[in-house]
Each structure stands twice: as structure tokens, then as C-alpha cells.
């Protein structure tokens, strides 16, 4: 393993040295420039992927950030005499600032996802282009950089530009690789699949999206800065052209937009093909040929070339390495000891009110959950059970009232902050991250949970809980390949992997058969035995009575009774509400 690692690093170093020294070889400068173009598109496509491929926020306006950087460099170098190399960090900075500025405003508007985000980026491109075109920045005449001085490496500006391009491509690939393997990357992929769930599982979605946007825009801006001197004469029309926006999208998807190396692969293929068919008569038909090739590749390799290659490698090497549970895991200390003599309040809700468009879902709810207990939460449909879970986990803001965890207020915290303090939940209808493997789904919860596990620990933790819930053999599957039963247990494993102090279970039993229910009940008891406080919402009375230490009954957004199961279920009001409703349905 280490030997292989050494070989890998040595190989990388040799490749890097060869690339750096390439212009010094006696090769026609065209190849140097051609490789620059490949680097340029690698940077652009990778930049697009960091925001759009990873986080799923589709930018149809990368020309805006590219253009912002390009004109920053062009303006500073020509009008203010700033040395060109100095303009590049500024170009990246201006573009990153633009990106994060937009992100700062946009990511606060919940609805601006998917195609609306795409629309926003299209609009920003038009606006930026119009501003540059109609002001002194360009004014319509274009900016000529022919007389801008550039330090010469390898005896020509071409060599310098090549190295700048190489640096840009290498930096963006390095960034993409680091992100891909880090918490940030996992968080972004989760945001792509289900942003709300990601937040509730502890992913600081706003910050992550902002970081991805700033980085993506910054890379595009730096690429623009270098490209300004490469072209030598820049105009608004060509800078904000549709292909500048389209190509990174095409390249990324072709290569594989959910892998860090995919866009670079796509960029190399497309750029090579474009310059391979530049000769006169067949130029136009050649491009049709490339397009046909593109279609065939997409049809045969739906996820892109990179995932296709990875599948091929796996097929050649037979089964991939499985993550084995770490031996010492069972010894991880539980957060709280078994129940003591005096009950301690773990979660304290006081006077909670929540209104949705005139409908009061929660009316002055007071509820104290005791440390180490199992609290059953029952009530007819629409009584506010799910809303209660949603406000406790921070998914919905409170209108009034307070929530405290072990005495500390949490109601003003964002959902991911609450998750990190140790509150986890499951969803009634499982909401796994559909494009992450079962193992990744669970590992994500461990990485972003209160213990904030490192990469290796998180996978060990995940493997442990998959084994615990009995779905370990499906670790490499995608959630879509699981049956309902397995998806329910995936929900549970994902909540448990966070090692929560308080676990909120939302109808985990619905849809399961008798034996499955019995198994689940045992599991829940076992979890409590580990020291976790459990609040569970359930319709199935048998389970409520069998499992709960106490039961709280909700009706019409208010708690109408609370106590031991037997006492509570006999109260007149409860009988009326509960059985009445049950009879009615």
C-alpha cells in the first residue's frame, strides 16, 4: 500500500515536472498554446463543477465570473499600469466577491434552487455584460492588451501564459480534489440531493454553498484574467458569448460532473476535438462528427466518462475493498449514563407557537423530555406532531416560545447547529441522499454529527451502524435500490451514526409487518439502553404502550395530556379525541 503510494507520488511528480518543462522542449509553440487552451477549459469546467456538479446549483452564467475576472485584469493592466501578474489575484478576488455577494443574497431565498438559480445566473451575465459594455470599463471599443508587458519564462510570453494556465488548472484540480474528499465535498453532494435533510443532518448549507460559489467564481475569474492576455484583444461580445457559458457545462457533464476529475477529462476531450477539426473545408462537418461522438458517449456512459472509467477499473479488479467495522467502536463512550434517580430535563419546550399562513399548527406547547426516557408522541393527523419535530430540529423557526437542550437555548440556532448539539431525527417517508451510497449516507451523519468524525472514523462508524441495523450488505448500493424496510433502517442508521443525545423518530414503524415491528421495538429499546433519549411519533398504539415511559397527546396543536401510557390513554379528553378520530377514519 505504501509502496503504491510512493509510486503514485513519484509518478505525479514526474508528470508535473514534464508539464512544467514542456515549453522548454523544442516543440512548436502552437502545442504550448494548445495545451494552454486545454488548461483554460479544465479550469473553467472544474470551476463550474465545484458549484454546479457538486452542490447542484446549476450556473448558466459562468461567463459572468469569467468576464468579471477578464475585465479586471484587462482594465488594471491597461488603464492603471498594474503589473499583469499582480492583476490575477485581483481578478480572482473580484470574481469571488461577485460570486459570494450574489450567493449571500440568493442563498437566503429558499426557493432559488434548480432552474430559478440557473435563471438568476443567466440574468447576472446579461447585466454584467451590459454594465461593462456601456461604461468606461469597455464602452464597446474593446480593450487592447498588445502593449501589456508580461515577464518571459522560457524565452517567450507563450511560455509564461502556458505556465499560468498550468498553474490555474492544477490549482483548480487540487481544490476540486480536496473538496471532493473533504467534509465540504460530502456536504455539497448532500446539498445536491436534499438540501433540507443535509441541513438537519448538520451540514452548514449556507456557508458551504457560499464557499463553493466563491471558489467557483474565483477560479473562473482567474481563468478570465489569464485569458485576457492570451487573446490580447478583448471585447464584450466575445467575452460573454454563449459558448463561454455552454462549454464548461458540456465538458463537465461529458466527463462526469460529480467527480473531481470528470470535468478535466471532458475539457481535454472537447478541446482536443475542436482543434483537431479546424482545417478549412471539413471544419463544419468535422464539428458535426464531434457532436455525434458526444451523443454516442453520453448514451453509452450516462454518468459521464469518469464514472465509466471507475466502473471499468472496478470490474477489472473484481470487488472493491469493503470498509470493515473498526474493532474498537463498541467501546466508544456513550454520552450519558443510564437513568439516575432524579429525572433531569433533557429537552425543554416552553410556550411554542407556530403558524403557517393563518393556520396555527402549534399553540403554546409546553413539553419537557426527560433524560434517558422514551416519550411517545401521539395524536390525530394534523395535530402538530411533525411540526413539533420540525421546530425542535430547527427546520422551521418558532413564532414564539423557547426550546432548551440541557438548559441551553437552541431555538435561535440554525438546523445544522442543533444537529451538532446532538439532536437527530428520522423521516416518516425516508429521505436518503439518493445519489450517495448507503454507506456515504450514514457516514455523512457521523461526519457532521456532534462528534464531527474524521473521514476514516466516519466510515467505520457508518459500517458499525449499518451492521447494527442489519443492512450492512447493502452498503455500496444506492438508496433507490433498497426496499422500504431497508430504507427505514437506513433512516435509523443515519440518525444513530450521529450519536445523538436526543433521537426523534417519526413513524418509523409504519409500513412494516409484525415481525419487522417486533425487531424494530427491540432495536429502539436497545438504543435507549445505550443512553439516548428518544421521542417517537407513532400511530400504532400497541407500540406506543409497549415502548413508552411516558406519552404526550397532541390535539389541534396543543398538548392535552401527558403521563404514563396507561393513565394517559384513559383520560376522557384523550379517548374522545383519539378514538373519535379513529372511528371517524
Amino acid at each position: 500500500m505504501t509502496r503504491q503510494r510512493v509510486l503514485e507520488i513519484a509518478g505525479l511528480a514526474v508528470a508535473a515536472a514534464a508539464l512544467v518543462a514542456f515549453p522548454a522542449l523544442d516543440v512548436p509553440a502552437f502545442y504550448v498554446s494548445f495545451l494552454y487552451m486545454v488548461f483554460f477549459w479544465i479550469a473553467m469546467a472544474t470551476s463550474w463543477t465545484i458549484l454546479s456538479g457538486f452542490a447542484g446549483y446549476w450556473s448558466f452564467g459562468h461567463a459572468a465570473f469569467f468576464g468579471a475576472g477578464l475585465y479586471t485584469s484587462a482594465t488594471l493592466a491597461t488603464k492603471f499600469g498594474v503589473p499583469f501578474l499582480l492583476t490575477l489575484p485581483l481578478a480572482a478576488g473580484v470574481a469571488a466577491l461577485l460570486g459570494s455577494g450574489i450567493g449571500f443574497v440568493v442563498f437566503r431565498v429558499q426557493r432559488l434552487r434548480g432552474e430559478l438559480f440557473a435563471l438568476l445566473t443567466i440574468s447576472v451575465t446579461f447585466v454584467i455584460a451590459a454594465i461593462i459594455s456601456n461604461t468606461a470599463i469597455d464602452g464597446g471599443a474593446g480593450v487592447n492588451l498588445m502593449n501589456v508587458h508580461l515577464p518571459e519564462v522560457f524565452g517567450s510570453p507563450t511560455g509564461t501564459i502556458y505556465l499560468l494556465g498550468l498553474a490555474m488548472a492544477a490549482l483548480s484540480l487540487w481544490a476540486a480534489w480536496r473538496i471532493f474528499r473533504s467534509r465540504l465535498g460530502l456536504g455539497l453532494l448532500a446539498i445536491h440531493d436534499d438540501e433540507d435533510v443535509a441541513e438537519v443532518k448538520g451540514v452548514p448549507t449556507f456557508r458551504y454553498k457560499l464557499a463553493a460559489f466563491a471558489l467557483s467564481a474565483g477560479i473562473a475569474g482567474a481563468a478570465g484574467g489569464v485569458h485576457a492576455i492570451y487573446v490580447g484583444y478583448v471585447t464584450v461580445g466575445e467575452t460573454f458569448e454563449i459558448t463561454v457559458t455552454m462549454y464548461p457545462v458540456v465538458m463537465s457533464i461529458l466527463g462526469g460532473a460529480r467527480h473531481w476529475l470528470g470535468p478535466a477529462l471532458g475539457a481535454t476531450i472537447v478541446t482536443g476535438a475542436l482543434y483537431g477539426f479546424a482545417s478549412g473545408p471539413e471544419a463544419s462537418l468535422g464539428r458535426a462528427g464531434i457532436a455525434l461522438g458526444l451523443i454516442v458517449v453520453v448514451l453509452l456512459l450516462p454518468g459521464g466518462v469518469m464514472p465509466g472509467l471507475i466502473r471499468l477499473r472496478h470490474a477489472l479488479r473484481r470487488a472493491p475493498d469493503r470498509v470493515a467495522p473498526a474493532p474498537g467502536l463498541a467501546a466508544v463512550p456513550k454520552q450519558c449514563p443510564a437513568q439516575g434517580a432524579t429525572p433531569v430535563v433533557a429537552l425543554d419546550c416552553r410556550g411554542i407557537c407556530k403558524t403557517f399562513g393563518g393556520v396555527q399548527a402549534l399553540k403554546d406547547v409546553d413539553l419537557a423530555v426527560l433524560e434517558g426516557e422514551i416519550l411517545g408522541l401521539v395524536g390525530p393527523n394534523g395535530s402538530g406532531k411533525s411540526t413539533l419535530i420540525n421546530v425542535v430540529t430547527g427546520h422551521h423557526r418558532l413564532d414564539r416560545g423557547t426550546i432548551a437542550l440541557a438548559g441551553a437555548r437552541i431555538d435561535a440556532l440554525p438546523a445544522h447547529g442543533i444537529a451538532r448539539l446532538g439532536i437527530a431525527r428520522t423521516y416518516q417517508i425516508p429521505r436518503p441522499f439518493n445519489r450517495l451510497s448507503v454507506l456515504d449516507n450514514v457516514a455523512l451523519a457521523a461526519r457532521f454529527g456532534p462528534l464531527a468524525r474524521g473521514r476514516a472514523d466516519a466510515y467505520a462508524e457508518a459500517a458499525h451502524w449499518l451492521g447494527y441495523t442489519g443492512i450492512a450488505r447493502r452498503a455500496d448500493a444506492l438508496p433507490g435500490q433498497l426496499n422500504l424496510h431497508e430504507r427505514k433502517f437506513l433512516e435509523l442508521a443515519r440518525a444513530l451514526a450521529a450519536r445523538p443525545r436526543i433521537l426523534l423518530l417519526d413513524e418509523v414503524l409504519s409500513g412494516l409487518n409484525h415481525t419487522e415491528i417486533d425487531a424494530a421495538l427491540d432495536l429502539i429499546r436497545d438504543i435507549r439502553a445505550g443512553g439516548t433519549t428518544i421521542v417517537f411519533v407513532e400511530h400504532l398504539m400497541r407500540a406506543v404502550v409497549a415502548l413508552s415511559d411516558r406519552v404526550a397527546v397532541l390535539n389541534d396543536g396543543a398538548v392535552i395530556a401527558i403521563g404514563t401510557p396507561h393513565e394517559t390513554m384513559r383520560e376522557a379528553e384523550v379517548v374522545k379525541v383519539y378514538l373519535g378520530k379513529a372511528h371517524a377514519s
Partner: protein
Amino acid sequence: MRIDLRMQSRRLVFAVLVCLTGLWPDGAVAQQASGKPIRIGQTLSLTGPLGQTGLTHKIVSEIFVEQLNQKGGLLGRPVEYVLLDDQSKADVARTLYERLITSDRVDLILGPYGTGAILASMGVAQRYHKIFIQNTLGIAEQATYEWHFAASLGGAEPQNTLPVKLFEAYGSTAHPPKTIAIVTSKFPSAQYMAQGTREVAKRVGVEPVLYLEYDFGTRDYGAIAARVKDTNADLLWVGALGVEGNQLLEALEKLGYKPPRHFYLYPSSGPLAVLPAADGALSLTSFEDGLPYTANPVSAEFARLFAERAAKAGLPYAHADSQAGNEYAGWQILTAAVTATKSLDDKALAEWLDKNEVETVLGKRDFGGKWHNSRTDYQQLRQVQDGRWVAVWPPEKATPGARLIAP
């Protein structure tokens, strides 16, 4: 021996690149036979938004090279024309000129079409010390390369000389315009000329009552037309490229308005000539398919061949115009210098051109203006009359029997 090694390393690098990218550059395998052809390289906008004009230039270049080879080539060697497609993009043009010079190793280059591509590729020419003859640059003052030569006739200050000429021409008519409406594309050269025209107009006492810039690629001209109609200036000056002039005129026609006098900067000749609403439209020219341009046999033969090839290529307007004439003149200038100096050395060619004049289809060409533009603006004004372009100004260069028609 040393040369062999270098060749080998080059082949190796080349093979690696081919493997990496599937790229196969033309002519990388050197030709070794005797009578080795002289290779002349150029990129043109064969595809993309400037594709129409690129096509015209391509036809002209092919005609010229064919004629040249029929007459025994250049310096007794055949000429090979290496044409690449720059997709109407400056960065692609720039990369491909580097390919022509360093990889395809052409002996000489000619400039591309379009302001962006010309300026971007001129930088490459400068870096490799290649003589750079271009024929369509609108912003003369941007061409600051010492071996740059302009084949076109606009002089070094077209933004001043053109409007002066235009007002002079109208000044000779019964009712010279007193107001002008200027509407221009934000294409760099067009906008540059429009701004110059506005200044000159003020100077000669023609009031600019409307000055509008629209984006290159504007899709709907209805609202702009409404403003032009609303202003009803004596002269409508349009900084139009391609068919933008047609689009504005059609929009004006739909509003029931016909400008009393109108001028179009760089229109696509054919579509404007055949548009009924364009009758009386003025434009610039330095070559047309007809007298007086075709008075000498070289020009006449060129015009005839162009008409033939254009019709064969399926072009709707199969007549040579300024675009075609300029390109032809570029080739004439380059080959004249080669023939005179018996050399392919860029420095020798540039020095010779600096001191001499060349006979072209556009007339006698000098490079006495700044940055090797023509000494002064020799261009003519042409007018659409009965669906054909005729030269109308200055009178001594007008098409026989034609004169400027104005209200």
C-alpha cells in the same frame, strides 16, 4: 546528426500529443519533393456569426491562389493555401495563427476577418516577426505593429475622413441634410466610426438629433425603428454589420416610414441591394462588379471568376464587392512584395512594401499613412439604385452614367 535528434524529439512529442488528444495537424509531415510549394496561411470565420463574410473571403483566396499557380506560382514554386476556421472567435484565431506559424510552418501569413480576430492574431505575428497584411480592420489606430500593412483604402483616420466624404457628397445635392440620426451596433469598429461621424457632423453644422447604440446581435429592431421614425432626421446613418441594416429597414417599413437619406457602414452587399426598401441607400466601397472598377483586365477577370464561383457555391448575391476586392488586394500586395524582393523573408518584404506602391484591383496602393495604412482615404461611396450597387462619389470615380440620387 543534431538535426536528426531534434526531429526525433519533435516526432516523439507530436506522437504523445496525438495520443493525448486525437489531434492531427495538417501538413505536420514535411514535404520534401523538389519544387517545394510556398505555403501561405490564413484563418477565416468559416463558421459562427461572421460566417457569411468569411465565405466571401475564402472564395477570393481560392481564386487568387488558383490564378497564381496557373501563372507559374511564386518565385517559380507552386503556392499552397493553408486555410483554418477560427469560428469567428478571437482566441481561436490567435491559437490557430500560432499553429500556422510554428507548427504548420507556413512561409507567409495573411490576416483574418473581423476586428477581434485581426487584433488578436496581429499580436502573434508581432511575436514571431511575421509581416501582417490585413484587409478589413475598422479601427486603424489599434494596429500598432510596425510590420502591419492595411490592404483596405480607408487611411489612418477613417472615422474622420469617411463622414467628411459623406457630408461632402450630400452637400453637392439640392437639399443637403441638416439633421442626422446615428444608430450603431456596439461592434467595436462600427461604434468607433459612429462616434467619429457624430463629431464631424457637429463640426460641419449637421445636428445629431439621435445617437443610439445597440448590442451586436440585437434580435428585435421594432423599438429602435420607432425612435428613428419619431426623430425623422434628414439623414439616417446606420453602423450596421451584416444584415442589421436590413433588419432596421424592414422594421421601419413596417412602421410605414422610409428614411429620406440613409447610409450603412459595413452591410452585407447582396441582401441590402435586393431589399426594395433599401433603394437609395449609401454605403462605402472600394470595389464593385462593374465599371469603373473592372476597367482593367485583372479586375474584370477577378470579378468574372468571383461571380462564377459564388454562384457555384450557392451564394444568393454572386457579385464581387469591397470585401472581395480587399481580400484580393491583400494577396496582390503580399505576392508583389515576394516577386519584387525574390524573397520570403518577412523583414525584406516589409521593408520593400514600406517604400513601394503596389497595383491592385482597388487601384494603386501606397502605405504612406500611419501604421502602413493608405496615405489618405481613397474609398468611394456607393448607392443602391434599382437593386444594384453603383459607385456615386467622388464623381470622377462614379459608375459611368450614375450620380448620387438624393431628395
